[in-house]
């Protein structure tokens, strides 16, 4: 290439603007993708919140709890004694349904289960990750109402997960349980409404029930093992 020949411009002047734009564009794209992932992870699509689940029998909590008024513990027998609240054995269903609705087509899977000694296969609705060790016994004992986490079960014809079950949701209460605590006597009351002075009542209950300091309640090993 001769020294006198004018060097032709490879890039037009507008390339500067394009370069800047694309830099900004890439940054925006990365941030946007980050935002998408962030939002997606908290969306009800990922958490399965408010999603109805297909079950072997379309069991209605609205009918059994809201309508008939069964106590939670009639079926979920181990909720006060164990980490797991317990799913009722077929026998529990048959306590009533050997007398009631004995010919209803919808109940055939229950009768079949009892007849053939084959358990029903329910799909888990409130499903925590496997590295989380939630314990019902202690929450019930310390004044966390069923509805606080499970929502208005008495009004659910079909069961769905009422809360996101994200760790930040757990920590919201573990950091400040007074926001949600209720008297032990009201834990299983589906109609309970938090009073206006919830914070005051919660603080009082927290002291009365000797609920641990947030320092302890937010230690990793309290829930993760």
């Amino acid at each position, binding site marked *: 290439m001769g020294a006198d020949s004018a060097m032709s411009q490879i890039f037009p002047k507008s390339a500067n603007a394009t370069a800047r734009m694309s830099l900004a564009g890439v940054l925006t794209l990365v941030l946007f993708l980050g935002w998408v992932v962030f939002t997606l992870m908290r969306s009800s699509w990922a958490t399965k919140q408010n999603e109805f689940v297909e079950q072997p029998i379309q069991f209605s909590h609205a009918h059994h709890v809201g309508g008939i008024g069964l106590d939670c513990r009639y079926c979920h027998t181990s909720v006060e004694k*164990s980490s797991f609240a317990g799913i009722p054995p077929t026998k529990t269903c048959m306590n009533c349904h050997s007398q009631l609705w004995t010919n209803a087509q919808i109940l055939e899977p229950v009768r079949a289960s009892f007849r053939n000694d084959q358990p029903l296969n329910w799909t888990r609705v409130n*499903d925590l990750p*496997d590295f989380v060790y939630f314990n019902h016994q*202690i929450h019930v*004992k310390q004044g966390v109402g069923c509805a606080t986490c499970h929502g208005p079960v008495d009004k659910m014809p079909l069961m769905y997960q009422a809360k996101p079950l994200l760790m930040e949701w757990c920590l919201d209460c573990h950091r400040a349980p007074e926001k949600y605590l209720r008297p032990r006597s009201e834990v299983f009351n589906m109609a309970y409404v938090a009073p206006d002075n919830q914070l005051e009542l919660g603080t009082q209950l927290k002291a009365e029930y000797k609920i641990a*300091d947030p320092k302890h309640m937010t230690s990793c090993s309290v829930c*993760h093992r």
Partner: protein
Amino acid sequence: MDFESIRKRLAGDGNLTGKAYWRSLEELADSKEFGDYMHREFPSQASEFSDPAGRRTFLKLMGASLALAGVGACTRQPVEKLVPYVRQPEELIPGRPLFYATAMPLGGYAYPLLAENHMGRPTKLEGNPEHPASLGGTDVFGQASVLNLYDPDRSRVIKGHGEIKTWSGFIAAMQGAMSAQRAVNGAGLRILTEPVSSPSIVAQITELTQSLPDAKWHQWDPVFGTVQGGATSFAPIYDFKAADVVVSLDEDFLGHGAGQVRYSKDFGSRRRIGTPNDEQNRLYVAEAIPTITGAKAEHRIAVRAQDIHAVAAAIAGAVGVSGSMAGAEAAAGAEEFVKAAAADLLAHRGRSLVVAGERQPAAVKELARAINDALGNSGTTVKYVAPVVASPADGVASITSLVSDMNAGKVDLLVIFDGNPVYTAPADLNFAEALGKVGLRVHVGMHFDDTAELSHWHVPAAHYLESWGDAKSFDGTVTLIQPLIAPIYDGKQTIEVLAAMNGNLGKTGSDLVKEFWAESLGTEAAWRKALHDGFIPNANAPAAPAAPAAPNEPANPAPAAPAAPAAPVDGYEVVFRPDPTVLDGRFGNNGWMQELPKPLSKLTWNSVAYIGVATAEKLGVQNEDVIEIASNGRRVRVPVWIMPGTATNTIGLHLGYGQTKLGRVANGVGMNVYPLRTSMAPWFVGGATVTKTGETYMLASTQTHFNMEGRNPVRVVTAEEYKHEPKESVEKLGPEVPPRDMTLYQNFEYTGNKWGMAIDLNACTGCGVCVVACVAENNIPVIGKEQIKKSREMHWIRVDTYFEGSLDAPSMVHQPVTCQQCENAPCEQVCPVGATVHSDEGLNDMVYNRCVGTRYCSNNCPYKVRRFNFLLYSDFATEEIKAQRNPDVTVRSRGVMEKCTYCVQRISHARIDAKTEGRDIRDGDIVTACQQACPSDAIMFGNLNDPDSKVSKLKEQERNYGLLEDLNTRPRTSYLAVVRNANPALDKA
């Protein structure tokens, strides 16, 4: 390896000062290779960064995995099913385990257990705390046997003449064969079992042999009941609590046997001293191959197994046993030991004890008894009773006569229950060939093994956790076995097959056992109580037909006059021992046992020839060199492991390896040494020749991993020093501990519970049961020999062994090391993602789901207790194994660091239960898995903020010290120093 320079270093020629503790000969040799090896924490990985190509690959892979991890996290949780019962059993609370008393039968003895059952799945075994043979402790086999239940390689179908058959098909075939036998009074019927103490099984066999008087019952087990030099008519039961001076003649009572757990408890009770003035017991051991009993001894000499008899005779002479023993001469080199031991025995008449080796000839056992009788120990520290095992046959004689009958064509029907005699029978008997001459061969066993393959019929046997039954523990207590689960692979119980042979068809194991006990127990309530307790308290067996004499009544058969020692045979001596982890091979397909480092050598996944340093020098061999051992025309090739403290010219071989038919874990692992073992000498034989082959064989020992760089990890003081200056004598052994206020951080105030652990090194025997218990409790994966070789073992607790003293007769100290739960944890400071953080109770929490696998924490951990899951070690594919897992502990995946949590799941359970009951956690509510299993009660866990807790009391002792405390890590686990109660007459130091 240059032994000459090592000796010089030890003699003080080098820069070693004071007492030097070493873990391996490699470390002691301090070679350049070893330095390079130790320089890298994970030897196969750490240097990769210096290689530019490796670095580039690494970054590429990291980028890809980061991207993939990001995408992977965007998935939704998989759907999970909830499967409730149809009819829920009574007493079962979903989510809570139930505990049932049962027992593991092994070699005819019952090992009492308490089984943890999660929704019908047995997951973990503990000792039965109420049973006198356990008192809550277990041995390694008891812990590991739960995995055998789920072994995917167990046989699942009945096979007859090579085809899959039904149970009724088998019954029909048996009935045909039995009716032919009935015609000839059972002349052609032989039954081969392992030793049996079960009263109900004995009753079934007795019924059979009574109706068929010419039928014969033989017993064979390569470990239990196998005797060399005749069987004795008595069995000793020791009381180590009452013994001030114990002399063991080649008996590993702390490391092996039906009484191991109880003996360790009792022995440990004399070592867990409270104050510097507490008196300890003193142990003398003469043995050929170092065992953990020998490691625990104040005074140990290595003598050939053949020379033990002479040592026994010399001690007998010195303590004045009447007869011809006076003036008997011990083997060369043992004179001083004999003199001191005898003097000590004489000084402690009635409070001393001589323990004879199970694998020594009857004459040695009789000598030991004569010594105990002469010293007035019989009745105080030992009682001699009739053997617990029924028809205490000399197993070798029994199988020898069976084989001669088989060879003579006298056997038409042979039924083999459990065991694998084709693999284990003495080589000279040629069992496999003799088996071919039997008309109909039936094998009932858990695996389709060598014996099953040569049998016409094979019936899968039920695991004991699937069985009803009974057996006696070593002290004669009748112990009940109840099932925790229905047979998973359709296994049949021994008693069911025997009943079928007796024509009792259609009865289940539960009917048979319950019927047997119904009469003597009377009421249903008594039966239920016995089942609940796991044993029948007044141990006397009922008047079952021809049941053996009740063992609790001292039968006191007079011992025969002790024979004089036979002249030892020169040349190399081969000593056979059951393997500390796979036993005779029956635990071979158990990955936990293969991976459990063997006490002292810390070898995994292998059998070796243990030789002493002098022998190695003579042969010119190093670790991993293969030698060929020839004895009586039979030869085997085995790799060498140099074990300091092995008697010169003795070669120690462990049974149980080199299997080919057991299963995916056992097959092809190690070398089979059974071909060298004869009926004349099942335990030791002289006159062998050894040649170096020039081959090498890779061995994986964990002993060289995680070096402590000579920083005084174990502290040993003499009883004398400890008495005079308790605090100083221990403190001066380590560097100065920095004061608590020497920190830039603000000290954290632990106001609630403050968890801590104390480990008494004086009580720890190094048996390794804590390791297996931890594996079972915490879902720790099995990784295999190659990964172990790369120093990637996953055990959260390890037992380090330190040697001190000369290469030929070192003393040994064990130290279990887990995460020390440092208050100033070095790992926490370096984690970039906060995956390891401190809890308010002082736990060093490991959060698996935050960990990204940088391994910085592990690099910065001075104790080297963090374990990285390099590959996908946990078995997510084998369905059978999944049922064993503890549902309360996460099954960790690849790329995640893990470590001891102080059994945080047990802490959580205790805390929640205490809060539900509205109280504080009591001392003793939380028992960690290692603590619970420990037969020596060496581990104590509890709340350090409670001044009255047991662990606080232990930590107040003067001999309490923290491991590497000078680094200001403030470990929550501390150790209680070893206090050696040496005999001044023998103490060289």
